[in-house]
């Protein structure tokens, strides 16, 4: 089996599975709960490792992770509900404690086994090709099986409960009134986040799972206001990050998962700057254009009151503009065909006169 293919497909599966559930975390403002869960699965994995007698079996690990993930959620909710601690503080209290327990257990009981801390924290997707399973007489990478099933599971969850998820995410009150059991849905989602975290544990490590769960959905969130589009875009960003991240990692000889997270971060930066809906630069550009447009209309309306062409110097004094701005405004008005430049100064065209006598439309 081609090692590159194994790694890339594993990464794509991890990012797809994460994007599907991560989108709902971002929408429900629970993004940092995924950070907590991804750390807290560590004691769950240790527990499973111990219960299964030192085997690194997948099923006990999944169960342990689900237990640890749900424990995180329950503990955070309990702490918040006591009213003694705010929600964000509750998250920041619970996960370091659980993570510490996990680290302690690893250093006490599993010092010399496969569960070393480096792998736990960063994971190493480069090892994916070496873990294979025999399936119907063919060697299949274990990561494909694990992450493939998880991707399928998450996809089924989203498809089957799409309506319920949507309603519970955007209007939990109505969902509860309609008897949609938002609580069950919530714990279902958290279970899947825990599953996904532990499934991706070996590949990308505890902390980088958060990158895959949060960054692609957050990027998609900036690009659209529609849920199906957001889900699709999140998956797309995940795939792009996987591919480009892998290429960069090979080129620079650096951590694959780390590079994928970096590329995802860059995707986010691009979306933040250039999103057509609300990108930082797009918005500024649009505002600038609108400012020029308004100024041009103002200028033409002003000229329309004069029977003679008005010298530019006079316009500058009248409006208090600087020459550079007047140049831009003049350019804008010329382009629109509202203005003409004659020897004596500026003069509105017939079109400009028509425009300024028409009712000023604020929303062209």
């Amino acid at each position, binding site marked *: 089996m081609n090692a590159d293919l194994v790694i890339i497909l594993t990464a794509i599966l991890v990012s797809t599975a994460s994007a599907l559930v991560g989108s709902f975390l*971002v929408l429900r*403002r*629970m*993004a*940092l709960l*995924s*950070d907590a869960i991804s*750390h807290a699965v560590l004691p769950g994995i240790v527990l499973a490792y111990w219960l299964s007698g030192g085997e690194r079996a997948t099923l006990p690990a999944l169960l342990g992770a689900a237990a640890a993930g749900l424990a995180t959620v329950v503990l955070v909710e309990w702490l918040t509900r*006591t009213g*003694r*601690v*705010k929600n*964000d*503080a509750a*998250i*920041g*209290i619970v996960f*370091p*404690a659980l*993570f*510490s*327990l996990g*680290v*302690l257990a690893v*250093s*006490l009981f599993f*010092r010399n086994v496969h569960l070393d*801390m480096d792998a736990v*924290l*960063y994971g190493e997707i480069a090892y994916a090709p070496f873990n294979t399973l025999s399936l119907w007489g063919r060697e299949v990478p274990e990561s494909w099986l694990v992450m493939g099933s998880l991707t399928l599971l998450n996809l089924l969850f989203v498809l089957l409960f799409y309506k319920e998820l949507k309603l519970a995410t955007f209007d939990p009150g109505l969902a509860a009134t309609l008897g949609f059991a938002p609580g069950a849905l919530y714990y279902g989602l958290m279970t899947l986040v825990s599953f996904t975290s532990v499934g991706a544990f070996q590949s990308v490590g505890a*902390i*980088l799972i*958060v*990158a895959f769960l*949060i*960054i692609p*959905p*957050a990027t998609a*969130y*900036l690009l659209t206001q529609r849920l199906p589009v957001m889900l699709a875009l999140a998956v797309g960003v995940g795939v792009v990050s996987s591919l480009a991240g892998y290429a960069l*990692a090979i080129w*620079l*000889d*650096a*951590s694959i*998962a*780390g*590079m*994928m*997270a*970096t590329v*995802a*971060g*860059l995707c*986010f930066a691009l979306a*933040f700057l250039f*999103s057509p809906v*609300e990108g*930082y630069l797009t*918005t500024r550009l649009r505002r600038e254009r609108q400012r020029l447009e308004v100024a041009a209309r103002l200028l033409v309306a002003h000229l329309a009151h004069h029977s003679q062409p008005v010298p530019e110097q006079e316009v500058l004094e009248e409006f208090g503009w600087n020459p550079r701005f007047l140049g831009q405004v003049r350019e804008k008005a010329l382009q629109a065909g509202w203005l003409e430049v004659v020897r004596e100064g500026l003069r509105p065209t017939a079109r400009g006169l028509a425009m300024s006598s028409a009712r000023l439309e604020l929303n062209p």
Partner: protein
Amino acid sequence: MSDLLLIFTDYTLRNVALGSAMLGMVGGVLGVFAVLRRQSLLGDVLAHAALPGICLAFILTGAKAPLILLVGGGLAGWLAAWLVLAVLRHSRLPEDSALGVMLSSFFGFGVALLTFIQHSNNASQAGLDQYIFGQAATIVASDVLNFTVLGGLALLTVGLFYKEFKLLAFDPAYAHSLGLPVRGLNTLLTSLTVLAVMVGLQTVGVVLMAAMLIAPAAAARQWTDRLSHMIGLSALFGAMAGVSGALISATRENLPTGPLVVLSMSAILLVSLFFAPLRGLVWDWARTQLHRHRVRLERLLLDAHVLHAHGTLTPQALAERRREPVAVALQNLEALRSLGWVQEHPQGFILTPTGEQKAHELEQAMRVLPHRVEGSS
């Protein structure tokens, strides 16, 4: 006890304990402001975001001088905090997502840089990745000195700007209306938090740093309503956790200090949550039980009062009225009698003058109940 004495005699342990205590103290003080301003998880983000800065500082200088690495980490953490604010100001992304994005992309970049350095076979890189877990056991005297100077600087600044920070934590709008440079003060507080996080990285590491900012403050909050007391307690709790974590980890081999410091802190927090006077959950529970008991007895008295007015205060009548077995009704009457509210009578029971008086008071109170309950609860 002999372990406790080691802290004075054992050189390594003394440094580790002092370093951890210093961290706990600085984290505790600055955490108070972070928690009150609902920026608890900013510390977590800063700690993660420092990694690429540490790596870049190493790549650029080729040296592993702690101070240079900390400056690099601090700059990166600061940049991440600034980016979070920029994203929040210019998009509709929720705050937690913005924090999560910066945390994980910076950390991912850091991990990539770290492996890049490791693969470049630079001999002096060893130990760089300990910033992730912290390596409290390797704290030496010069580190303690660094911590003390940096931490002292942070604490001094908090002392100087105490009034301003206090206002900022509780009423930023009012602070603004007073003409205080709110944005500048915010930046200053964030920078101090960055400083605290950088101090903590070496001791408890990236992952556990969040706890050292939040938990001491959250624990201290349970004991007091006054900011100055909260800061003092938070510092004390942090220092206690630091020292006890260091001590426990010294008792056996293979006990990492960082996680033990955090777990000690969690223990202090749990004790505070349950047993702090006024806010403790246990006292709260006890008060609720007591209150319930009192309300139950008062209801009982009112029932008895109604029956008494009809001249039929017997166990049977009470049982019927309250839909309970006669045996229970008898017990209830016994309870009322032990309070001196009823007494036995040839036809059953009657209310005593005290009971009569009490029932009257209760009825009066119930007539104005809505107001009274709101006012008195």
